[in-house]
């Protein structure tokens, strides 16, 4: 049975939530929190030492153990140095091209596990104190005759992240704990302006060492009150859905995979016992999935991913890799994996039978968690089902809603077929 409209609505809601949450490799806490919260008691969950969520979903018992996996982390940045002038040097976490960074606005976010200042508040007062104070802070930005939309402090989706709450938080922080503010701070990725570049420099792509994050601090000392070396930073791009159903957002890679799995669990769709793994650190070398696969020891695995589509005016023919609107992408080979041929063929047949959009890639490139999973333990028969996605690893990746539904339907069909037809 293909996706109902109720399922589609739930899926899109979850995908939107997940894309807006920040969580780069090694900093997946907030994504994990959301996932555990949404799963509730619909599956039995454990979290492994690398932070992967392993969710055992119970349905009909099956002879062979199936693991369905997607990664929680997204590409982002890590602060490497605080300069004398208060700006921050940084590097990318995962493969981000520096030319997609210059001039972008970002948020700089501490490590929540270190900066959990709530715990420092006197019991019973923390929430209220912060709320009251932030309401006042919110008032500050409201003036009678001027629209205030534009002046939201960065990252201020919730009142508790408002400017004034820094001070509220500071007040309750006990002396032996870092007194850094709770909220993420905003910034811009700066570089030398075009006016001051030589003709040669204008033709030379930017490098990370030419870029810095400006959070508005006057000097290093002020910056250090807000940011520490090792903190993460994220693109700040709004979620947008075009009238024709194309989605533009950061982090579609791989929150799409997480959203497919969460929706399957919440809607109770798997027909047989299935282990879902929401893994960490894919973008820095398929690290979480390696540990999850070792722990689960599956017979077969489906990896759900977002994969590069280059169906844009700058490329032609095979170089387009795959195309938006043509459905789920099932790979035969990439730089990390030669996929199980029988599973590949089965997916193609089932897609044709059920009327699910199916395509493969026209370039052997890239890689995903399959690379770690298929050679885990005694070996795991593995396939990857991906949504085609333009501008992967940039602040504004673009994917098509219908392709996502095709991925969802194909994963659901394969969950059953892998037990019954292989």
């Amino acid at each position: 049975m293909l996706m109902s409209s109720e399922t589609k609505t739930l899926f899109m809601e979850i995908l939107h939530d997940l894309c807006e949450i920040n969580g780069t490799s090694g900093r997946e806490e907030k994504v994990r929190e959301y996932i555990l919260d949404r799963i509730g008691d619909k599956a039995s969950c454990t979290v492994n030492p690398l932070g992967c969520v392993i969710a055992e979903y119970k349905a009909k018992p099956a002879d062979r153990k199936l693991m369905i996996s997607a990664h929680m982390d997204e590409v982002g940045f890590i602060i490497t140095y605080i300069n004398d002038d208060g700006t921050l040097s940084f590097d990318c976490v995962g493969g981000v091209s520096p030319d997609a960074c210059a001039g972008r606005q970002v948020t700089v976010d501490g490590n929540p596990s270190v900066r959990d200042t709530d715990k420092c508040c006197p019991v019973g007062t923390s929430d209220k104190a912060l709320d009251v104070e932030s309401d006042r802070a919110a008032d500050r930005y409201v003036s009678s005759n001027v629209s205030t939309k534009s002046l939201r402090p960065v990252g201020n989706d919730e009142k508790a992240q408002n400017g004034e709450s820094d001070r509220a938080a500071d007040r309750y922080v006990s002396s032996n704990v870092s007194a850094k503010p709770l909220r993420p701070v905003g910034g811009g990725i700066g570089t030398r302006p075009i006016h001051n570049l030589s003709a040669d420099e204008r033709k030379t792509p930017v490098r990370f060492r030419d870029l810095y994050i400006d959070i508005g601090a006057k000097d290093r000392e002020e910056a250090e009150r807000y940011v520490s070396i090792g903190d993460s930073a994220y693109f700040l791009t709004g979620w947008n859905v075009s009238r024709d159903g194309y989605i533009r957002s950061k982090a579609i890679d791989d929150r799409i995979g997480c959203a497919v799995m969460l929706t399957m669990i919440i809607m109770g769709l798997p027909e047989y016992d299935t282990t879902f793994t929401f893994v960490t650190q894919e973008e820095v070398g398929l690290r979480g999935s390696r540990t999850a696969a070792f722990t689960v020891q599956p017979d077969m695995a489906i990896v759900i991913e977002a994969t590069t589509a280059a169906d844009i005016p700058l490329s032609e023919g095979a170089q387009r890799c795959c195309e938006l609107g043509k459905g789920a992408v099932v790979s035969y080979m990439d730089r990390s994996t030669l996929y199980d041929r029988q599973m590949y063929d089965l997916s193609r047949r089932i897609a044709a039978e059920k009327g699910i959009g199916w395509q493969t890639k026209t370039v052997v490139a890239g890689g995903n968690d399959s690379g770690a999973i298929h050679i885990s333990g005694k070996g795991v028969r593995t396939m990857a089902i991906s949504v085609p996605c333009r501008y992967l690893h940039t602040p504004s990746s673009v994917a098509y809603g219908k392709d996502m539904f095709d991925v969802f339907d194909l994963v659901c069909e394969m969950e059953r077929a892998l037990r019954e037809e292989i």
Partner: protein
Amino acid sequence: MDITKFKELTARLADAKGVSGSEDGIAHMCAELMSRYTDRVEIVNGNVYAHFGERRDKPHVLLDAHLDKVGLICTDVRDDGFISADMVGGIDLRSMPAQPVIIHGREDICGVICTLPPHLKTSDEVMTKDQLYIDTGLSPESAKALISRGDPISYEAECRELIGDRLCGAALDDRCGISTVIQAIDELHYTDDMPYTLTVMFSTQEEIGERGACIGAFTVDPDICIEVDVSFALAQGEDRKKCGTLGGGCMIGVSPTLDKALSDGFIAFAKENDIPFDIEVMSGTTGTNADRFTVSRGGARAVTLSVPLRNMHLPCEVIDANDCMTTAKLITAFLRGDVKC
């Protein structure tokens, strides 16, 4: 205005549309803001003029900031639904891949500038303007219905507060100049006893060759011009001697093409009154509207007062609002006759 109100106004102006040649919206917004201070506000050939005082026996001062911002323009709606675009003003193509934009078509449409995935890039070169394509996520039919050749395109970036009184936004060049002028007029409370007749102008098309200034100076025929624009603030990789300092106050221009007595007057006043400032030395023309004012008709005396700004023409320009406030103070003092020149 206090600095909180000032920042709100600046952000609101910075977020308004108005790529060069499409300044109607921002012009009307500025005209409305100026109508709080004088009844004599008009928009002529795109420029906004607000007149204070009518006496002809006093020197006539033109106080200007420009309305427009850099951006892109739609050159074609392709059959595959993608948009071809060209640059309006000084765009840094190094920063364009995957840049989010808004196309101002029949409605505002979000888009992103196309870029090839890294493994398909054949060379290590910066994209050329012929490779500027925009992905709107629209079907070819929708794209053709909503977007036409000539539609202006802005960066998609909201003006946001950073730490302290600093702001980060896409068009602070020169919307913070406009808010600075408004701040100066707000504090001035113009009366006919003041030593100058004043015209405030917000001009079009600075970014593509100071064209609004060209016709504005001819129309107003001023004796003295004060140009409020932005200039380079010191940042990583920049040359200290060519830059002001964020938070270091107004950059007072000194140049062979500017009036030395005016520059000296502002410098002396700032020193005497402990107003922070920097001297911005330019060895020839200034790259601002002042270049037009000084040689319009029979010529005029001019000075530039610039707000230091980082990341010029990128979607994350950064200013310190305190620099605008001190610049406004200098302007108010001048118009009251406190600056000797």
